[in-house]
């Protein structure tokens, strides 16, 4: 059966017609047949022929042959012999053996022809109209060895080569498109950092480099071409899985993007003058040198795999001392530890085999596995339910009657386990904020260069962990705030020196976990917010009335208002069409809060408070009438019971509470939710001080039941837009409590009194 199809294939090959050396389609057909033939049962001789044929075809197709005519003849010769049905005579074989060896020997002894460079580059050196001046340029890079010696080759590479521009339009197109590509690379790098094994992402970064290289080749932009080429090679290796994408590789790509950007702007200035530098930039040559010497495989961190001896000792099969003893002997005798142990009779061969197997499994499992985030979410959700179910059981009056000591002990154990489970399930989704912070280093560097201001970034708390989903979402707001800090906050060096500050400004980026929340500070030591200027602007924009008396903090909060910008002109640095209103909205979508503190001449602090995860909030459970509500602690400043004297009504502003000299409007939650309260008088009830948009409010509730981390349950689409409620939570006794949306309540309250 196999033989027959083999014969068919041979017949087909024999019958195939290749019109000539340009008939690539014909050659392709034969190559396909040869591939098929290879899967048949071939003799060593036949395999040899097939390989020879393939190599010869490849050489002709790739135009790497030094003597195509001769190769061509050899191909026909080999095909003839291979397909000759009466090819049993050994004489024929002898004849053949000489033939191909002879032809192959002419150029290279290997199957894959390694043609000398001089032979390849003869062909593409044909000049086009715009290359007359550029021949010189070519000589130094591409054809270093073969162009006539003593010419430009000898010139030091650092000399900048400048050429006149022939077709500026083309260059302009290239500039624009290359910039777009670089932007897409930067975006994708971010995804790559989070998911370094994603081939799609690597490819998405590889492709633009490839395209830039291609066009730069046409335009004879040697520096750009070579640089893109090296990065492309590196990425190609990563794409084919030869080595993992490490931070070092990402750094290289980022640096390349930087240099390319610089090159593009140089090109732009050059275009205006009609003369462009195409090669010899010292920064490029330094970079090329580094990348060419870079060993991507070396930067792979070694994974610690336990030794066989360690596994055996851990299992208690043999004592540590005996292993040490055997290890020494084994080393002296050049034997493996397992062998030596068996030889000494201290372990059974079976144990060694098991240890080896375990070691192998460890090698395969290495350190981490990928899990679908949905599964993870589901797990986290179910653990939340488990915790709730547990407290439902434990709070059951019947269960609480049980006085058995053993039972009490078991409960403690159960609580401990579920507590640990909950802790682990939360941590599963958490990643350090480090990666996000590190991107800011680059941003600050870029911004400082662009704006001409000296800015230093100081970071702390990079190891603070945050929900993975949130990491992505806080990136944009962070970028925006840092842009703002550089653009509006930090003064130019001269101005700083005049103000008695150091010439370089500093931006502090800090993250820390406080209670159930993450607090991220973005602080600069710049000029601070100008309350008066903001006020004027707000009046101009109709956001406030001239007679409105606002506190400084409330004025600051106006910058979060859509369409507010303190600088008239949109600058290159911060004018990106994204305003602080978007920042605030994003933070609020994450159930977080953002606050501003600023002092003229000393700087500004933006403080972001975010919940640890999207699934759980740290809440204060309060009672209003017979109902219970959860107030997120993130919104809560304090709780208090005022004295009778502190409560009063201000004309036109409704009920106010005086909290240490500060008047705050009173918001009666029972009125809002239409409930019958236990107490109507604030001095008998309880006040929750919350802060929204720089203004403080007192929410009136009856009592505080306790503080608890609650698992958020979506209320479904029907209740999604109920004002004042952001979700539901199941409490320990199994009853549902609604989570209060402080912002919603305050907004509704403001609307009500206006």
């Amino acid at each position, binding site marked *: 059966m196999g033989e027959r199809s083999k014969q068919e294939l041979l017949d087909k090959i024999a019958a195939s017609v290749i019109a000539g050396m340009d008939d*690539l*389609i014909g050659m392709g057909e034969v190559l*396909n047949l040869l591939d098929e033939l290879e899967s048949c049962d071939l003799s060593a001789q036949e395999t040899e022929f097939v390989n020879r044929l393939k190599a010869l075809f490849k050489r002709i*197709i790739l135009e790497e042959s030094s003597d195509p005519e001769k190769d061509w003849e050899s191909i026909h010769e080999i095909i003839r012999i291979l397909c000759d049905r009466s090819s049993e005579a050994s004489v024929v074989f002898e004849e053949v053996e000489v033939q191909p060896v002879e032809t192959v020997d002419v150029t290279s002894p290997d199957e894959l022809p390694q043609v000398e460079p001089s032979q390849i580059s003869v*062909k593409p050196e044909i000049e*086009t109209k715009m290359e007359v001046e550029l021949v010189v340029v070519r000589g130094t890079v591409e054809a270093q060895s073969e162009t006539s010696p003593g010419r430009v080759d000898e010139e030091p590479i650092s000399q900048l080569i400048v050429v006149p521009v022939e077709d500026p339009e083309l260059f302009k*197109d290239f500039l624009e498109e290359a910039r777009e590509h670089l932007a897409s690379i930067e975006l994708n790098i971010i995804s790559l950092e989070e998911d370094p094994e994603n081939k799609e992402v690597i490819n998405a970064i590889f492709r633009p480099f490839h395209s830039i290289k*291609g*066009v730069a080749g046409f335009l004879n932009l040697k520096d750009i071409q070579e640089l893109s080429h090296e990065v*492309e090679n590196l990425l190609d290796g990563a794409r084919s899985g030869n080595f993992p994408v490490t931070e070092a590789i990402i750094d290289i790509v980022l640096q390349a993007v930087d240099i390319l950007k610089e090159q593009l702007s140089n090109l732009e200035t050059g275009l205006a003058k009609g003369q462009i530098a195409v090669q010899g930039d010292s920064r490029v040559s330094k970079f090329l040198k580094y990348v060419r010497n870079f060993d991507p495989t070396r930067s792979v961190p070694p994974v610690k795999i336990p030794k066989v001896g360690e596994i055996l000792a851990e299992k208690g099969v043999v004592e540590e001392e005996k292993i040490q003893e055997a290890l020494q002997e084994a080393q002296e005798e050049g034997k493996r530890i397992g062998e030596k142990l068996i030889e000494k009779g201290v372990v059974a061969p079976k144990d060694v085999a098991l240890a080896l197997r375990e070691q192998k499994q460890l090698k395969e499992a290495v350190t981490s596995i990928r899990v679908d985030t949905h599964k993870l979410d589901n797990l986290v959700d179910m653990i939340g339910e488990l915790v709730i179910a547990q407290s439902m059981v434990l709070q059951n009056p019947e269960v609480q009657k049980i006085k058995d000591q053993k039972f009490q002990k078991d409960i403690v154990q159960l609580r401990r386990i579920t507590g640990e489970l909950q802790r682990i399930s939360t941590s599963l989704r958490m990643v350090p904020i480090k990666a996000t912070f590190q991107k800011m280093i680059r941003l600050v560097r870029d911004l400082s260069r662009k704006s001409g201001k000296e800015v230093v970034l100081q970071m702390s708390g990079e190891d603070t962990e945050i929900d993975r989903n949130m990491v992505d979402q806080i990136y944009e707001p962070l970028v925006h705030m840092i842009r703002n800090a550089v653009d509006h906050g930090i003064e130019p060096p001269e101005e700083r020196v005049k103000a008695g500050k150091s010439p370089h400004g500093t931006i502090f980026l800090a993250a820390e976990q406080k209670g159930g929340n993450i607090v991220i500070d973005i602080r600069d030591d710049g000029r601070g917010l100008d309350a008066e200027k903001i006020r004027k602007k707000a009046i101009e924009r109709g956001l406030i009335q001239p007679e409105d008396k606002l506190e400084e903090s409330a004025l600051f909060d106006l910058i979060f208002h859509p369409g507010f910008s303190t600088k008239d002109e949109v600058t290159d640095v911060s004018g990106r069409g994204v305003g602080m209103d978007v920042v605030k909205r994003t933070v609020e979508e994450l159930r977080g809060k953002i606050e501003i503190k600023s002092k003229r001449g000393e700087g500004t602090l933006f403080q972001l408070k975010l919940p640890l995860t999207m699934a759980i909030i740290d809440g204060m459970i309060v009672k209003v009438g017979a109902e219970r509500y959860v107030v997120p602690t993130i919104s809560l400043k304090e709780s208090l019971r005022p004295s009778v004297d502190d409560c009063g009504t201000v004309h036109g502003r409704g009920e106010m509470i005086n909290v240490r000299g500060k008047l705050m409007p009173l918001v009666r939650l029972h009125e809002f939710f239409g409930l019958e309260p236990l107490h109507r008088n604030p001095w008998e009830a309880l006040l929750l001080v919350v802060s929204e948009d720089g203004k403080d409010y007192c929410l009136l509730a009856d009592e505080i039941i306790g503080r608890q981390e609650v698992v958020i349950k979506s209320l479904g689409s029907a209740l999604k837009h109920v004002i004042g409620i952001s979700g539901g939570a199941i409490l320990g006794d199994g009853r549902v409590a609604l989570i209060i949306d402080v912002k919603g309540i305050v907004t509704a309250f403001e609307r009500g009194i206006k």
Partner: protein
Amino acid sequence: MPSYKDMTVLVVDDFATMRRIIRNILRDLEFKKILEAEDGTAAVDILKTQKVDLIISDWNMPKMTGLELLKWVRSNEDTKDIPFLMVTAEAQKENVIEAIKAKVSNYIVKPFTAQTLAEKLEKIIPKDK
């Protein structure tokens, strides 16, 4: 030299500048009807509705690569005989064999000169046209 005046060429490349370069060269070679597509899928859309006499396609493109486009062209009754010139980069030259097996008419390595392109076209376009 074959007459290119009446032929419709489809240039496929995701990089607009690259398409422009090729288009400029083709203009010099007296091609009049030059269509452009920014990747394989866009090229397929064009091929489904218009008669094309020659395809010049880049290899490395998002969504649908040049090789995938070639395979589609060759497997489709209406398009299977269209001369197909694959544009490839020096680094990817080894892959050319793949394209040859998929019946590419010829290939050209970037960066190429107008003359090289002209020579390649001469090789793949039937002389009687």
